[in-house]
């Protein structure tokens, strides 16, 4: 990516005063893991709901020497990931990468990379609705009181209803967690498959909700526990087959519809992970030479 840095704008778009304001919110969020810190979210040049919260967090923590990776649905090449990566390449002139291990900051929508994160990395989540209790209680004044008084019984009522109705907890993504034994937190709409990766992660996890004007955080090596019942323990989504391209087991798969006669294939949602494995010689059932695939 060699686009020239955008003239007329500050490094990483936001002015320094705004960045300071956001950094203060981030520091507070780190000090109170899982607590939603209100911040004066700015209007960004991309729409609300398209990652403005994550972009503001990234813009406030990024430095010229950082290496940025942006993924959406696990992929570096989806439209919104491309757009956000291009935004930082233009406004901050930073190096970008698709390799999880090479990145110092990873901004993500809906996935946590398969490759384990390491000390010093920052994972920035884009969050649409930060309040895990929102669909049980629409009033902000009431949900803030519930957090303050640690009244989380209602969340279990929801899980109870799932089991009574379906025999399972029917929440498959945005699965609520308790952070450091205190705050109830929405992990953003990542599949619950990724929840265990949040627990005791060496990386700093920052969450930005632009439209809802909230920032929250999970500091490195913090307990993150998915809610459940003793007799209906939390379980991750499982797939019957390995990835059709790289043969990986125990990874999150996307379903690709091949034809209108029920033909399906399952491939890694994390494109970097899949590509790396294929380069190492791993092969799945349907892998073919990838040269010349349509764009």
């Amino acid at each position, binding site marked *: 990516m060699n686009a020239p840095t955008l003239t007329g704008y500050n490094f990483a778009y936001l002015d320094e005063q705004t960045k300071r304001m956001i950094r203060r919110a981030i520091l507070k969020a780190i000090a109170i893991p899982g607590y939603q810190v209100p911040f004066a979210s700015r209007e960004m040049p991309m729409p609300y709901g398209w990652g403005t919260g994550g972009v503001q967090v990234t813009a406030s923590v990024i430095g010229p020497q950082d290496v940025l990776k942006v993924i959406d649905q696990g992929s570096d090449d989806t439209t919104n990931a491309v757009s956000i990566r291009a935004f930082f390449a233009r406004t901050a002139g930073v190096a970008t990468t698709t390799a999880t291990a090479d990145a110092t900051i990873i901004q993500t929508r809906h996935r946590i990379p398969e490759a384990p994160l390491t000390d010093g990395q920052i994972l920035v989540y884009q969050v649409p609705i930060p309040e895990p209790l929102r669909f049980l209680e629409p009033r902000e004044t009431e949900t803030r009181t519930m957090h*303050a008084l640690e009244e989380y019984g209602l969340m279990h*009522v929801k899980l*109870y209803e799932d*089991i*009574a109705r379906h025999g399972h907890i029917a929440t498959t993504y945005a699965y609520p967690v308790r952070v450091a034994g205190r705050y109830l937190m929405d992990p953003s709409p990542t599949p619950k498959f990724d929840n265990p990766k949040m627990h005791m992660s060496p990386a700093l996890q920052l969450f930005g909700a632009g439209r809802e004007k909230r920032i929250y955080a999970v500091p490195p090596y913090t307990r993150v526990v998915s809610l459940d*019942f*003793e*007799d209906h323990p939390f379980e991750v989504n499982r797939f019957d087959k390995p990835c059709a391209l790289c043969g990986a087991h125990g990874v999150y798969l996307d379903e690709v519809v091949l034809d209108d006669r029920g033909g399906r294939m399952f491939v890694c949602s994390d494109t970097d992970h899949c590509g790396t494995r294929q380069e190492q010689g791993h092969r799945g059932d349907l892998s073919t030479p990838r040269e010349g695939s349509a764009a």
Partner: protein
Amino acid sequence: MTQDLPLLSVRRLGKSYGARTGCRDVSFDIHAGEVLAVVGESGSGKSTLLNVLSTQLAPTTGEIHYRMRDGVMRDVFALSDAERRFLLRTDWGFVHQDPAQGLRMTVSAGANVGERLMAVGQRHYGHIRHTAVDWLGRVEIDAGRIDDAPRSFSGGMRQRLQIARNLVTHPRLVFMDEPTGGLDVSVQARLLDLLRGLVADLGLSVVIVTHDLAVARLLSHRIMVMRHGTVIETGLTDQVLDDPREPYTQLLVSSVLQV
């Protein structure tokens, strides 16, 4: 020793809205296992009193002390929000006249009963469900209805569900606001019978507000007659109803059928 202390002690309680008086200068004690009926016409201040007693309204004057489970008398309005809300969902109950106000109408009967248990930290689905089944039985609701929403219940069933939802944490004090109001006479009789049994079995203390002296006679040990926001007569229920001293009470008593 602490058993000699009242469970709830109310002194010179008053609530006014600007120039208008809701209730004033109300004092009484309730001991464990005692049922107090507050009777009067609509506008007599009995509902205001109940809302202040249950801390849903702040009083203008006076104090309420409650004997906590550790035996210490505490000023309920000096409790922190967290303590007060915890009290409200564990050691206290509140039965509304309209069950829709006291129930979550969109979640199942089982979850309605189980909510308080989950709120205090129970995390075993099977145990919660077992307790819910048990309580549905005690309020005479068929266990087969456990996964139905109260929306599909009759008025009487909803009221019984609301009672089960309140009693599941074994509260020591329950406030009831016209619990039989709005129900058919035959349904009322069954509910009263059920309530009387539960109150006796569990040794509950109850403050029940009603305009129906028959309800007061059937359920309560003591009675408090209110008019224009003040208590005009108080005493043992049978005594007051059989031999009322105040002309107003005499009028009330004469206008109802004897049970």
